């Protein structure tokens, strides 16, 4: 079910400001691709163009093509709502719905899709929470509010919620930046398991994390303040961190800026 993503000539704007310029890349299915780069380089913006969440912000628009197994996300007749169902997303800060229980949080997407059968929902809750390595911790309190969990548990709950709708791609926008080291480790382990089934793209500020979890790494940079962000290079993670082909990448990785 995992799909390949092919991006070509993609630029994104906020009103009149160009945030990212002319990005082309391929993301392999069943792999983890990490986006790294200094603040403001547009890596999160780019991530949000991959499930059409970018255009949710008033005045934001996108040019270019994103192919999901040959189907253009920005093609005519494509429904952004359907895109977001196919390409799931996990956000920087855990954001379970505060008024819902753990159970309701996991099935929120299915409920929207019109799934009502209790047996189906029960099954999905169990498999999704197991998939997110959270089942054992919460199985006795599924009807408690999701907001009562710890930060790391909340983030795994959000992952469970995202995978419950069976997406083909999972986008993660700095999923560990608000978490403590132990929770971070748990999420990183989970990413390693999830890549068996999903195409995963993760934005991270933490280069060790990129090195630990990803198969391929893309480095983004911007020429200066106010300039749009660009993709500098994309290669196997190992190569990027040992022998990058562009000088800027090496400078960034070795801590000379950023």
């Amino acid at each position, binding site marked *: 079910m995992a799909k390949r993503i092919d991006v070509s000539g993609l630029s994104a704007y906020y009103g009149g400001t160009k945030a990212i310029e002319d990005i082309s890349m391929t993301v392999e299915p069943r792999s983890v691709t990490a986006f790294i780069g200094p603040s403001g380089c547009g890596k999160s913006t780019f991530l949000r163009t991959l*499930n059409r*969440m970018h255009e949710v912000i008033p005045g934001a628009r996108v040019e270019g093509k994103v192919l999901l197994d040959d189907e253009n996300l920005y093609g005519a007749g494509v429904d952004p709502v359907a895109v977001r169902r196919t390409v799931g997303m996990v956000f920087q800060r855990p954001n*379970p*719905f*505060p008024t819902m229980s753990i159970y309701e949080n996991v099935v929120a997407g299915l409920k*929207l899709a019109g799934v009502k059968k209790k047996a189906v929902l029960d099954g999905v809750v169990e498999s999704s929470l197991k998939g997110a390595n959270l089942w054992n911790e919460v199985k006795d309190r599924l009807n408690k509010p999701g907001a009562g969990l710890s930060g790391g548990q909340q983030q795994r709950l959000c992952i469970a919620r995202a995978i419950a709708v069976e997406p083909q791609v999972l986008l993660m926008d700095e999923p560990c930046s608000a978490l403590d080291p132990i929770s971070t480790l748990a999420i990183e382990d989970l990413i390693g398991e999830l890549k068996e089934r999903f195409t995963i793209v993760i934005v991270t500020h933490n280069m060790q994390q990129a090195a630990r979890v990803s198969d391929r790494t893309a480095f983004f940079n911007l020429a200066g303040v106010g300039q749009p962000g660009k993709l500098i290079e994309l290669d196997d993670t190992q190569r990027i961190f040992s022998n990058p082909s562009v000088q800027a990448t090496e400078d960034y990785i070795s801590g000379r800026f950023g």
Partner: protein
Amino acid sequence: MTSSPPPDFSEKSGPPASTGVRPPASTGRSGQSSLKGNSRLGDSVFFGLSAGSGILLLVIMAAIAGFLLFRSGIAISKDHTNFLTTFGWDPDNILKPSFGIAVLAFGTIVSAAIAMLIAVPIATGIALFISHYAPRRIAQPFAYLVDLLAAVPSIIYGLWGALFLVPHLNGLMSWLNEYLGWTYIFKTTDPGAPARSLFTVGILLAIMVLPIITAVSREVFRQVPRAHEEAALALGATRWEMIRTAVLPFGRPGIISASMLGLGRALGETIAVATVLSSSSVLSLHILDAGGGTFAQNIALKFGEAGPLGKDALMAAGMVLFVITLLVNGAARLIIARRKEYSGANA
């Protein structure tokens, strides 16, 4: 001043209320006491003043309740009929004063209920329109306009209601009578008469409380964390589904408290009702028929010619109104407080 040691802020729970007396704790350790004594005095005086103001507010509230209760007691003890179930209002009858709130309570509740039925859904819609649907260029000025309208005096709503709304509602009234007359409620016994009925009052009250309910719920909708809206959208929700999953549950206590505020206004509205309603001491479920009355309207209308007992009787009506609005506002507080505990962790 700046050379004196920092004052002792641990006394946040409040220095002794007896102003002018230096707190004993400071005597032991203050060397340059003239400066320090001054600042202590200043602190005590200022604290006394501000705490005193707070207490004054409480005293006023207590006095309102106390005086109204006292006056109503006088009135009700002289009432020759049952205060709760009597329809008429004739307190200044020297031989046999009789008055009761049955018609007034009915009219107040019915008109406020009609107002709420109309205003709450529409106000919620407008609030969503401003916070989530309208293009920015419209949303901002429109929100501003709604705020301004909240400030329009009720006498002007009343004037407009009586001279503009009433004649323009005649068509609707006869239509309701003709096609929905079988419901009994919408039956008109006197078709064609000016629509100075509880129904019209309800519509006018709805228009009057619309801006308040809108303004409060709009603020709540705006405070819905973006993260929750995006979470819903990322799950593949349409805009309406996003609002149902993320915005409305989060905003529900806000809508409730906004509605309670509006309800309080509608229950206590005086002059607009007095302007529009053609009152009588008839209790009728035909809400399109002129007649009936509300607490506040009755007080304003009867006050001019009321004698001593008449005034006390009106105080009794005011007391009932006071208690009702207290209960409504208190309930709103409780609902909000409880919801906060439940959903506060991540908000």
